[in-house]
């Protein structure tokens, strides 16, 4: 079975994520790292490959050239090769443009299963897989916390607002996994050493038939609305009373 895993190289949370005031986009000048959410998708792909004993795991991403450094972590975990769509013409793509470009790259791969993480770690987006599945005209399951593949279909169990749904989709399919699905492995030293020699391909906008489509725009960046005054009391036995009076004042009880 061939599995493609769509991942995002994101600015490291530790070194700080910030927005570029000029472009109003996320600043990507610093180091990029494999999104934690996506490492769960990589892990699940590797487990599925190990369970069947054969197949291929391809990492697919879109981002600046240096994003390849972050994809190498997925290779170090055990993925077989990486494909990065990287083109200045695609910088600033929003959901519409990104979905098209990724679908173009995935179209060249024809994987049996395409996996995503549950959300982007920097932009909090949680719907790219649905847009990609639409372009690929494939069935989709999101937020899967358990996954099984058998008899030409994939079955996922997920939590919704109302309980647990078990959903089955015919392969080829697109599945987004939740971070509850597994614990991603740490790359071994051997894996890290071997990653550099694994195939790493960069595709242009022309290769994937995409161009930056921005159907959305950021007009302004503002500070968060200020909260009112913050009151602090030490509990001297009257803490509960103080809360009740506060709630009464706010007409909340």
């Amino acid at each position: 079975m061939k599995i493609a895993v769509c991942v995002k190289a994101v600015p490291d949370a530790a070194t700080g994520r910030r927005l570029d005031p000029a472009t109003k986009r996320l600043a990507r000048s610093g180091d990029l790292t494999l999104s934690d959410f996506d490492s769960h998708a990589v892990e699940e792909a590797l487990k599925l490959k190990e369970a069947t004993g054969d197949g291929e795991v391809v990492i697919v991403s879109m981002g600046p050239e240096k994003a390849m450094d972050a994809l190498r972590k997925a290779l170090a975990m055990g993925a077989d090769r990486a494909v990065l769509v990287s083109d200045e013409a695609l910088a600033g793509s929003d959901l519409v443009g990104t979905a098209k470009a990724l679908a173009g790259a995935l179209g060249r791969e024809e994987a049996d299963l395409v996996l995503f993480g549950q959300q982007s770690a920097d932009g909090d987006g949680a719907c790219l897989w649905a847009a990609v599945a639409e372009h690929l005209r494939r069935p989709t399951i999101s937020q899967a916390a358990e996954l099984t593949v058998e008899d030409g279909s994939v079955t996922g169990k997920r939590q919704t607002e109302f309980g647990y749904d078990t959903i089955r989709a015919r392969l080829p399919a697109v599945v987004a996994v939740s971070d509850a699905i597994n614990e991603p492995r740490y790359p071994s030293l051997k894996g890290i050493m071997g990653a550099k020699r694994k195939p790493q391909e960069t595709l242009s906008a022309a290769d994937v038939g995409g161009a930056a489509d921005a159907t959305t725009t950021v007009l302004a960046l503002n500070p968060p609305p200020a909260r009112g005054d913050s009151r602090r009391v030490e509990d001297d036995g009257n803490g509960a009373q103080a809360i009740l009076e506060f709630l009464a004042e706010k007409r909340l009880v």
Partner: protein
Amino acid sequence: MAKILVFLEHHGNELQKGALGVLSKAAQLGGDVAGVVVGEGARAVADEAGKFGASLVFAAEDPRLAAPLPQPRVDVLAKLVRDEGFDTVLFAQSVLAADVAGALSARLEAGLNWDLVDIVADGDGFIGKRPALADSVFADVAWTSTPRLALFRSGSFDANATGGSAEVRGLEVELEDFSTLTELVSQEEEESTGPSIEDADVIVAGGRGLGDPEKFALVEDLARALGGAVGATRAVVDAGWYPYASQVGQTGKSVSPKLYVAVGISGAIQHKVGMQSSNVIVSINKDPNAPIFEYSDLGVVGDLHEIVPKLTELVRSRKGS
């Protein structure tokens, strides 16, 4: 004037409160506001939307739409938007709605702004308000073309029943071949002991400061007294103290109730992003340096095991009086 369509998710025989909140907001924005209900029992619940500001509600009922799966809904919405010329489609956040909105964006090449907490009119268009980077920045976002799609964070708007009525129109359903390749195998309803955190006006949430899982009873008692739902931090959900459905924060749910009571929660950034847009935040923690105090309206430094039971009693006796 904008022509707005609101995706009205329903479960059983009820329209979801989040969707009705978005509908109420759309009605305030003015213009023609219609709703669409898709799935089993759609017709039965459709006219309820009239009370919340829809003048017209489309209902699509078909056996192939019974399961809560996104792709058949995308087919229904895409056709409706094209046929009726809607220029704006609004969604309230849910597992289902996010998938529908994402796929509809691809189908219609329509811009989608997600995680919005507000929307305001701007000339012929709209500006959305979107918290970003752990809510440290509030971006004004817009659309460069129509249709415009927007997905709103849970609890962004109150559902206001104004008492109007809606015309209900049935929809013909035509599905794409790939929309029928997914099936619902089984569904387990979660045993719920109270309102879900997305729908609750009051949330009492517990964190590791409770000490042990049994102490969640303190949180549950206070939630019951206040008529609210129980929330939990990632740490205690990971530790198996409380179910994931109650998890508030980055990998859980974002909520904005009228009142959020944080009990034994230090308030790390991952939790903060999920609850800081609550109207009023009250926190109880024994650590005076807990970050939660920085964004609480009222912070009480003290032992929750003393304060919470007392507060529960006080609330009960006040309500009883």
